């Protein structure tokens, strides 16, 4: 059949390779369609693996007005696992999750102390003793338009970064 077609093509057209070209174009188009959709579906399946929202405490949360924290206080918020540090006119949030095995750290006279394995941290969260391998992370604090402070645990900031009031 293909030979017959070729002879007809050679007789009536100046382009003897037209059938061949058309075939290649179609082949190219269908492979593009199939591989393209395979790629898209693999990609979307991979994206799908990571949940967009989880049922935990939200990572960005309001912690109340600056006035709720008088200057000089260090208040650890239990469920949110963050310690709000207020000094004169600046505020910071330091994590209270131990960098060793994830226990909830309490405040102490010298900074922070972990009840589980005795890790100790100074006021800035630097390790001063015990098995903890890393200092405590600091989180970004912003002032929301409604006057409340917001802590974003997704945004770590370098030690010593304060929100100026």
């Amino acid at each position, binding site marked *: 059949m293909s030979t017959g077609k070729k002879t007809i093509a050679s007789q009536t057209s100046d382009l003897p390779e037209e059938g061949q070209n058309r*075939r290649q174009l*179609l*082949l190219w*188009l*269908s*492979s*593009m*369609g*199939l591989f*393209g*959709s395979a790629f*898209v*579906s693999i*990609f*979307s399946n991979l*994206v*799908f693996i990571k949940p*967009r*929202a989880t*049922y*935990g*405490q*939200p990572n*960005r*949360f*309001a912690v109340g007005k600056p006035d709720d924290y008088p200057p000089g206080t260090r208040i650890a918020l239990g469920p949110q696992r963050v310690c709000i540090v207020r000094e004169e006119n600046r505020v910071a949030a330091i994590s209270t999750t131990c960098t060793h095995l994830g226990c909830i750290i309490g405040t102490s006279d010298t900074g922070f102390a972990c009840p589980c394995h005795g890790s100790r941290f100074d006021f800035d969260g630097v390790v001063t003793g015990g098995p903890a391998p890393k200092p405590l992370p600091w989180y*970004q604090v*912003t*002032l*929301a*338009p*409604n*006057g409340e402070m917001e802590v974003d645990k997704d*945004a770590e900031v370098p030690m010593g970064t304060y*929100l*100026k009031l």
Partner: protein
Amino acid sequence: MRLALALASLLILVIHLAVFYDQFFHPWEKHQTAYFDQALNMAKTDGERAALKDRKPRIEQTIVTQFGETRVDRCQTCHIAADDPRFKDHAQPIKAHPYAEALGDKLVNGKWERRHKFSDFGCTVCHDGQGRGLQAEYGHGKDHYWPDPLLGYATQEPWRNEFKPKLLGKDYLQANCAQCHTEEKFAGTPKVAQGRKLFFEKNCYGCHRIEGIANGTLAPDLSEVGKKFKLDYLWESLVDPRANIATSFMPKFNLTDEETQALVIFLKSRKGVNFAETSLDRYRAQLATKTLHPEVSPTLTADATATPVSIGETLVKEKSCAACHKIGVLDGGIAPDLSFEGLLKDETWMMGHFRNPRALVPDSIMPTFSFSEAEYKDMTEYLKSLRTPPPIATSEEAFKNLCQRCHGEKGDGNGITALYLDPSPRDFTKSGFMNSKTEERLLKSIKEGVPGTSMPAWGQVLNDDQSRSLLEYLWKTYVREPRKPLKPRNVPETNPVAMNPDSVRRGEQIFAMRCTGCHGKKADGKGPNSLDILPRPRNLRNSEFVNAMNDRRLFESILYGVQGTAMPPWVDYGMTNNEVGDLVNFIRSVNQKQK
């Protein structure tokens, strides 16, 4: 072939891309980006700007565990500016939630402080809707299968479009305020209070039960009605009770739209356990309803010139008696005409009937309204004063004014109230029945009524001649057959079998064999066959009726059957007088016990 393959594969690619786009590019991302852009322009400090630049669109959620089941409210994913007072005049969804004194918000140093912080309360506690939804349609609960659409803001495709505009508005949110603020006179829930007042004024409590509020037993329990039904269903059920349940005998109360709205809001607030309640509160409320007496309206007692009759008249009007009964021009179309009740019943009957309607008419649907004894008395005085008979100059007129309401225009026992009466009114067109009874007996029914049923004694209204001509009129108009001579019947005047436990036991056995199919195991007229039979089998536990019947009549009905009904003549099945005597003793014993 190759062309088709190429086209098909391209089509698949397009579909994949469309699905991909739909799954990974959301409207809420656009709202959040728009919010970030606008907030960036409003930002005053560099820190603010830097923080905003860091933020990327993501699902914002509040997890609330204090109010019943855990709620996951993602509303602020789209309504991202809900807590940003700078956006108070913007368009939805990037709009700040309003602040108001009424919501408990406080103005401190020129800045509003919320009473109900979104981080503590979430959104759906007050607004309803589907907290997890990330598309407006689902989030707002517009999906038909979501039980609580956004209260007062979204209606699901209602089946009655005329209600749609009435179901919108902030007022409906009061139903949810009342979940915590359960005080009756809470300033924030005036509509709930109004609805509660109407619930008593319109006598809803007589039939319906709401835990801690009302103890009615006739109609559905409304304790959790707000949880089960949406606003449009509640509205529809109030204005058109038979829209959903064809056999409902709830009257139409002719409420104004404002009253209906208040009742809908009150009903919507009934969701069973409230967030504010403890089990002790519930127990106390339960105890309280056992002695429930709604207050007499203070205007009545204050009026010094009031007589019992005038107080009774006001009560009868205020308590919606005419929602079922006919009193003068008011007509509920469900229950008997009270316009000349003073002629038909005496004080003892009325007081007894108020206290417990089913003690006198055992199958009555009239609820026992827990008014005070003094109110019963006043209403009795008023009803006693209604002694003007309707025009009864001709028999035709008499039938129209006295009989037609129950027995129907065609005399076939299908009057407007017939559906609600048990036993049902007699069908005069069944000539078999009419011809099998003596004239004396038919006249007796007219003049003395039938005890235990809704048939009153017309003797006070009609004199002997009028009764007789009324019966002739019935015969001429409805029976339309010449009166046949009665066949002689061999019936004993009194029961030949003495009443004793043995006879009762034998009677019970015969009853179980012969009668239970229609009259039921309990002899209450609700046997398995009763559903297919009209008129329904007699309730033999209707003591008022049974005790008024002499032995002769019971014997006659059993031995020779009741023509025009399904009751067969048992003499044809070989039943002897002694067996019937045992049966009669059994029936009488059942009704003695009940007394």
